[in-house]
């Protein structure tokens, strides 16, 4: 069950994963790998279980069957203490930002620093300011989450996710509820950060513009068959996939006939 993966370049391996709520099977037999440093997209129609897959990958839900590996290590079978350690290497941006509403932005970012580093308060504050500056929120350190716009909350959430310089960044629907320009800016930011920090990035989204702008590799979950329909770079899937559902999704409902590219 815990044999080593073949490819040392692989960062995350999802093997035979079946997700279920009680008796209701949401997705079965998911198998895919995420390479180190790439931007990986989890896509599919609404309600197919994209976000649930992400919640499995960060340990919020136990798989009904199957395992998830980070590098060589079995995350699913790890004990609670080890899981907590592994979680510390992840940064997660939740759909709604999920900033702690009783704390200022700086406190939000510096809370994990205070818990898991030896930095003193002044240093933590400096790191928090830097992270906020990276996402374009310089000067907003002492604002509370409810005082800023949705797009800014997302970016602040990103700053918090990056607080501990994570090896893996997870994004749950980063562009949900954002206007096209903010959404584009966030995409650029994700790409920029992934390139410069070298983090592996996993993005759950159904926004075609984002998928093609940032996605280097992807997996497509098909709600009809309750399984993954395809995996590979999104552009290749759009042009070459032999699965009509995947092509239709990536062509925004077009039938994938030649000449109908976006």
């Amino acid at each position, binding site marked *: 069950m815990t044999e080593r993966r073949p490819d040392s370049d692989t960062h995350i391996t999802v093997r035979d994963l079946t997700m279920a709520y009680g008796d209701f099977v949401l997705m079965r037999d998911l198998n895919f790998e995420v390479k180190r440093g790439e931007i990986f997209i989890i896509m599919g129609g609404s309600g197919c279980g994209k976000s649930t897959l992400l919640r499995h990958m960060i340990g919020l839900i136990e798989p009904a069957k199957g395992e998830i590996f980070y590098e060589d290590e079995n995350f699913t079978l790890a004990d609670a203490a080890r899981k907590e*350690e592994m979680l510390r290497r992840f940064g997660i941006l*939740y759909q709604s930002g999920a900033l702690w509403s009783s704390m200022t932005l700086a406190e939000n970012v510096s809370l994990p620093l205070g818990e898991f580093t030896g930095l003193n308060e002044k240093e933590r504050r400096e790191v928090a300011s830097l992270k906020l500056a990276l996402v374009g929120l310089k000067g907003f350190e002492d604002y509370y989450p409810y005082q800023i716009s949705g797009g800014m909350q997302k970016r602040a959430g990103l700053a918090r996710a990056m607080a501990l310089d994570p090896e893996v960044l997870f994004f749950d629907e980063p562009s949900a509820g954002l206007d096209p320009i903010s959404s584009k800016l966030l995409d650029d930011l994700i790409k920029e950060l992934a390139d410069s920090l070298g983090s592996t990035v996993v993005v759950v989204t159904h926004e075609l513009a984002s998928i093609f702008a940032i996605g280097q590799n992807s997996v497509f979950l098909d709600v009809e068959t309750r399984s993954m329909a395809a995996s590979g770079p999104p552009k290749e899937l759009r042009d070459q996939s032999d699965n009509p559902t995947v092509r239709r999704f990536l062509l925004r409902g077009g039938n994938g006939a030649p000449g109908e590219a976006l």
Partner: protein
Amino acid sequence: MSTVPALGELTFRRTPDAELVIEISGDWRLHEALPDLAPVEAELVGAAPPRAVVVDAGGLGEWDSSVLVFLSSISALAGERGVPVDRRALPVGIQRLLELAEAVPEKEGARQAEAEASLLERIGTRTISAQESFVEMLHFLGDATLTFGKMLRRAARFRRSDLLMLMQQVGAEAVGIVTLISFLVGLILAFIGAAQLQQFGAAIYVADLVGIGMVRDVAALMTAIVMAGRTGAAYAAELGSMKVTQEIDALTTMGISPLEFLVLPRIVALVLMMPLLTLYADLVGVLGGAFVGVTMLDLSISAYMQETASAVSVLDLVGGMFKGTVYGALIAVAGCLRGMQSGTSSSAVGVATTSAVVTAIVWIISACGAFAVLFYALGI
């Protein structure tokens, strides 16, 4: 048009080649009642079922969804009997909307069977869920106890500033309501006592009644009930909405236990503040009694206070504060438990809040009963 056409009219006509023509005319409006389908059904199943149905809307005035509902019901009726419906004579808008409604076939299994559960089944389901909820509660209590142990070893992660803030919220900010309630309860006790004791000319014993009653039991109980509504509900609502906004997920995935970070300071704050509030309520309750004693029973304030002091022992005082502390723990645990159990919708937060208050009050009253028996048995 000079004459106003009748609302939603319906006529039938048969063509020589056995087609049923349904003519709809007049204005069709949703706020009128929808026309009766029975005549159409009668025509369809009658002695000579039609070969096809043709809908003619030549005289149709203004229309809205009522026409669509009616026509799609006809289509469904005819479809069941394999009779084709010709809709070509309808306005284009109606045709398009009907096509749109029929474009996606009903999903297999999407309709939920609305089966009425039998009494036995409902009892079973309730029993199972009650058992599950009990087990969940035990888990929570166990985890909370472990976390408390962790705090004693100074290994629990929470912010001291949060604890101070919470202590202010549940302690200092509750003083107003506790003052009001305790004063009134002291007053009520005094009235009840006065009515009886005055008959024997023993009005001074009102002080004993109010003093012992408030200090031993009533002050702690009333404060606890106020705090269950005030703080227990707040805890559940706060933690419940943090679940909705994924703030609790964010803590968990950051490796920070929500039990340590959120639940522990809340329980500690209330457990620290409740004995103080109880002590304060004792004092205000006695003042409430004294108010009645001085204004209605013509007792002097010093006599009243002296009588109270001689009636109430330190043990009574400590016992009352101890009860208050236990009630505080019960309220905080009930509030946090229900908050952490909350679902992730706004109505679930409402349910959690209600349930927190109900749970806390049930626990408080049960504990009060248990204390009464225990203290009696111990002779305190």
